[in-house]
């Protein structure tokens, strides 16, 4: 009797073990989906871009200043698109990076718990608004406002400044919350030491906390700029779709992302150079943002190593 009971129990144990091993394998497979995704991204982008580069020389692509993929005499010089992307990124950075840091300083050094509980969810709501809505905001409010405030600049219906401002508003909550994480990681003892020496709050924030959190702040800045580079809809709507080499924020420009949107709306035939150019541009975009994200991760690791 006891023997039969024991086998029953050990049978159940064996079953339980196999069952759990199966679950572990299923979970592992789910985790491997992410590797598959990365591989698929790299293979598709590189494969299609490779076919594109067999028609258009990489040298002409990376050094050309004329982007006119739909003309019968199509030109694929990517520099105007990179120029447009840079204009948006730098513009939005000028707006969002200082403001984001200041608001992070307020939240981490000044705000009472009650003020934080109101302000932080508000900023999170700002971050939850879809980018296409920011595009509408740019077209309907920012551009008319720019025209009114600076009538002599000659702002067009679509212009880089409007795009840069809405992207800046968009990345502001990201900068603010990542910077706040970095500032909060600075140990209290550093602050207390400075207060003990008679420093004011502003002096503690600017001369102690910010320098101590510098690598975290750098990480926040890089991530936010990488987000700005990849931002698509707000830019497509507010900044227009005219690829050109210009530094004038009043003109319409085209970024790498808004080219992809504009061209894929036209559903280019799969064998055409225009179809391939989508992937060549996306590959450049992917590589740029990947490098920036890896760099940001390095900075984050640095401040974690120091303070954790």
């Amino acid at each position, binding site marked *: 009797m006891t023997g039969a009971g024991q086998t029953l129990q050990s049978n159940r144990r064996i079953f339980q073990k196999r069952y759990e091993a199966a679950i572990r394998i299923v979970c592992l497979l789910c985790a491997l989906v992410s590797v598959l995704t990365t591989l*698929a*991204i790299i293979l598709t982008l590189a494969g299609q871009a490779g076919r594109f580069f067999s028609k258009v020389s990489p040298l002409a692509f990376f050094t050309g200043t004329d982007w006119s993929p739909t003309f019968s005499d199509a030109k694929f010089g990517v520099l105007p698109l990179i120029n447009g992307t840079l204009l948006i990124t730098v513009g939005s950075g000028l707006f969002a990076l200082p403001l984001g840091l200041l608001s992070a300083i307020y939240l981490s050094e000044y705000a009472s718990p009650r003020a934080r509980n109101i302000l932080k969810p508000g900023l999170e709501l700002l971050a939850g608004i879809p*980018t296409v809505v920011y595009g509408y*905001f740019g077209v309907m409010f920012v551009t008319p406002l720019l025209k009114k405030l600076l009538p002599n600049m000659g702002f067009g219906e679509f212009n880089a400044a409007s795009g840069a401002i809405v992207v800046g508003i968009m990345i502001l909550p990201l900068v603010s919350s990542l910077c706040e994480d970095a500032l909060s990681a600075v140990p209290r003892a550093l602050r207390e030491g400075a207060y003990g020496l008679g420093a004011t709050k502003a002096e503690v924030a600017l001369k102690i906390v910010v320098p101590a959190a510098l690598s975290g702040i750098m990480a926040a800045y890089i991530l936010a700029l990488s987000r700005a580079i990849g931002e698509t809809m707000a830019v497509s709507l507010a900044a227009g779709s005219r690829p050109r080499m210009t530094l004038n924020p009043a003109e319409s420009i085209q970024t790498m992302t808004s080219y992809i949107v504009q061209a894929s709306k036209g559903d280019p035939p799969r064998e055409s150079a225009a179809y391939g150019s989508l992937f060549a541009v996306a590959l450049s975009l992917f590589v740029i943002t990947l490098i920036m994200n890896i760099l940001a991760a390095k900075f984050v690791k640095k401040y974690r190593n120091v303070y954790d």
Partner: protein
Amino acid sequence: MSTLNPLHTTPKTLSNLARRRAVEKAFAFVCLAATCLGLLLLVVLLWGVFQDGIHWVNANFLTNFGSRTATRAGIKAGLYGTIWVIGFTGLLAIPIGIAAAIYLEEMAPKNRLTEFLQTNIANLAGVPSIVYGLLGLAVFVHFLKFGQSVLSGALTMSLLILPTVILTTQEALRAVPSSLREASYGLGATQWQTIRHQVVPAAFSGIITGIILSLSRAIGETAPLITIGAFSSISRVPERLQSEFTVLPILIFNWTTDTKEGFKNVAAATIIVLLGVLLAMNSLAIYLRYRRRTL
């Protein structure tokens, strides 16, 4: 005389102190202003959209298809399309994301493979959404021949939000104290029994928060679906996974670029509907998070 004055409060140090106090006050004000600017912009944005569009939101607006005349245009196709795409995105991404997070957080050995998986997921979370759109175009639309369908859209969106689902679920699992696991093991539970009956229930509100935030990101996401070729001007609702579709953000995009009279208002009205859905979801997520914090 100065030897009689132990604190050295000469006029010069006094003015220096006054200057420092002034700087302090000004700086505090600037920081507060920077924080409020974001919120102010939020209010201006919402108010402007509200004014442009609220009079256009009515029953017909919800049940009409698109039209060449602004007053007859409605969002039915986009509304149903969004529900279809996001529904299937959730069905795919939630179980896979949670399982992957459970593997990485609870089961995975600390080795190079795990570290590689983790780095890879973090990097995927930073890939611009439009790149996922091109992945979907090449793999789902053309290579697997799913066409410009709900299925292609949902698969693309799933891949897009998967890293976020995994990372937020991991964070929720990490917040469960290890004493809970040890107590469960101490009572003779196996690893899976511990995860299933202790860890996941304890992390539940955190996991839900992450899922809501990921799905609401997917609802507002436009670029990848334009890239895979979602139509903006269809007058049908999806009936199968193979159906063509459009979504609310694409309608907003098209109507914002439409120069005909009244379409800007239609766009604003669509934004109001979209934001209504998103605000409800985000508030729920934020509520769940703050409730968890106070528990």
